[in-house]
């Protein structure tokens, strides 16, 4: 049955896309979790939606628009917080809402047929176009490269930003770089797995990995493995439900619920073990 699933090209593409996404999300998600910037990531994901709409209206590739807009929002939020001393929480909520509103306005203004909005919001890992596999592979390369090159610095800024400033590190630039990595990951993966699954993959595997590791690099590796396992099992599980039991369980949500179950189990297990 597993062999049968693997014989379908769409299933192969979904699996490859999922595994590649697990790498990006495992590494970037580790920073998201230890820095506590999950809500910024959510804000960026929805802000990016604004430019998906603009892309439709102006006729350019929505991904390019979203990437530009995602990076601009990351920059805007960071600068507004540092320089204008605005409450980060409020800024995030605003960027979140503004992005969605702009997206919907642009799409309403765009002529022609109704685009697949749901696809951008919720994605569908089973319909990943082949060229996106290259996008995600490219994303992985960039992320792995940047993190290997700047690992100690990114770790230091995540751990203690004030101290990093005091010893003369370029704190603002490093923190913007981290946000840019988050924005790029979110925007590229939105098209593949949708906003909701991106946020799940950025937070859940890393949160699970945190239970079992005491430093950042192993946490990244474990988060990647956990993400890959959740995605693989989720894919096969939803395929099995639909082919054997004719139950049409969407793949994305299946992966998320599986990861949530693993997280809860891991949290309880960790507690029980450390209480002994």
């Amino acid at each position, binding site marked *: 049955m597993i062999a049968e699933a693997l014989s379908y090209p769409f299933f192969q593409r979904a699996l490859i896309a999922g595994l590649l996404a697990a790498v990006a999300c495992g590494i970037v998600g580790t920073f998201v979790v*230890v820095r506590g910037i999950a809500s910024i990531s959510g804000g960026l994901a929805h802000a990016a939606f604004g430019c998906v709409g603009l892309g439709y209206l102006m006729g350019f590739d929505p991904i390019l628009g979203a990437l530009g807009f995602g990076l601009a929002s990351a920059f805007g939020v960071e600068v507004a917080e540092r320089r204008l001393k605005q409450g980060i929480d409020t800024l995030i909520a605003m960027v979140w809402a503004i992005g969605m509103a702009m997206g919907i306005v642009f799409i309403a203004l765009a002529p022609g047929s109704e685009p697949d909005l749901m696809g951008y919001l919720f994605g569908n890992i089973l319909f990943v176009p082949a060229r996106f596999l290259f996008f995600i592979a490219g994303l992985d390369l960039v992320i792995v490269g940047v993190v290997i090159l700047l690992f*100690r610095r990114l770790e*230091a800024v995540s*751990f203690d930003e004030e*101290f990093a400033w005091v*010893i*003369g*590190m370029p704190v603002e630039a490093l923190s913007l770089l981290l946000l840019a990595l988050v924005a790029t990951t979110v925007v590229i993966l939105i098209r593949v797995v949708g906003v909701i699954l991106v946020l799940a993959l950025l937070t859940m595997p890393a949160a699970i990995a945190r239970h079992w590791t*005491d430093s950042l690099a192993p946490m990244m590796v474990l988060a990647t493995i956990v993400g890959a396992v959740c995605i693989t099992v989720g894919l096969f599980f939803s395929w099995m439900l639909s082919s054997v039991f004719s139950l049409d369980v969407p793949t994305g949500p299946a992966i998320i619920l599986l990861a949530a179950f693993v997280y809860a189990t891991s949290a309880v297990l960790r507690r029980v073990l450390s209480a002994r």
Partner: protein
Amino acid sequence: MSGPVVVSMDRVNFTYAGVDVLRDISFEFYEGDFVGIIGPNAGGKTTLLKLMLGLLRPDSGSIRILGVSPDEARGSVGYVPQYAHFDRSFPIRVRTAVKMGTLGRGRTRDAEVDDAVARALEQVELHGVADRQMGSLSGGQLQRALIARALVTEPKLLLLDEPTASLDTKIGRSVYELLEELAEKITVVLVSHDIGVISRHVRTIACLNVEMHYHQSKNLTPEMIEAAYGCPVDLVAHGHPHRVLEQHQWADS
């Protein structure tokens, strides 16, 4: 006093949301000083430290650290933040956290860095727990780890924020003994709300409550404390109201 000026402030003002946090602060600390700045909570102690570190900018007045602006002095100042504010679940080992202190200046060779880290850990007597996770340390150990991290930057000036807050007295004393040792070689400035402990270890005391009272001595007059705390003295030092002051009068006579 002797030696060159290490920290100086000249008519520094800092307001937050329209309220004066620091008003007209002027003082000089000299090389080799071991200064304790005491004052009530919300008296501006942490703000004063952050101004010295360049983390905040004054509304008016000038600040010189080691002869330059706080921004330019980055990298020559060791900073030990309040350990209680740390996210203890952050996945980082003691050795890695201490190593962070070597990232500022381009210290190149790995062996040199590892050496400096090992020496700093030895100095604060934490070499035995170097590979434990930061969050698994006790309060006193965590405080020592943060001191080690500041020491590997090879600072000329060490600034500490409430180094013994919420440590029990015995462990707090061991932290101060370490600081006394360090103060033999570098200038040390710390802030604390704990007059009782601080006064037994530092060489000079400043009182801070929006305004600063500092006479480059350990002489704490009742007037200084009342000005700083804005309340009668015996309400200030919880537990041992009079003893603190009497000690100072004896020490000075």
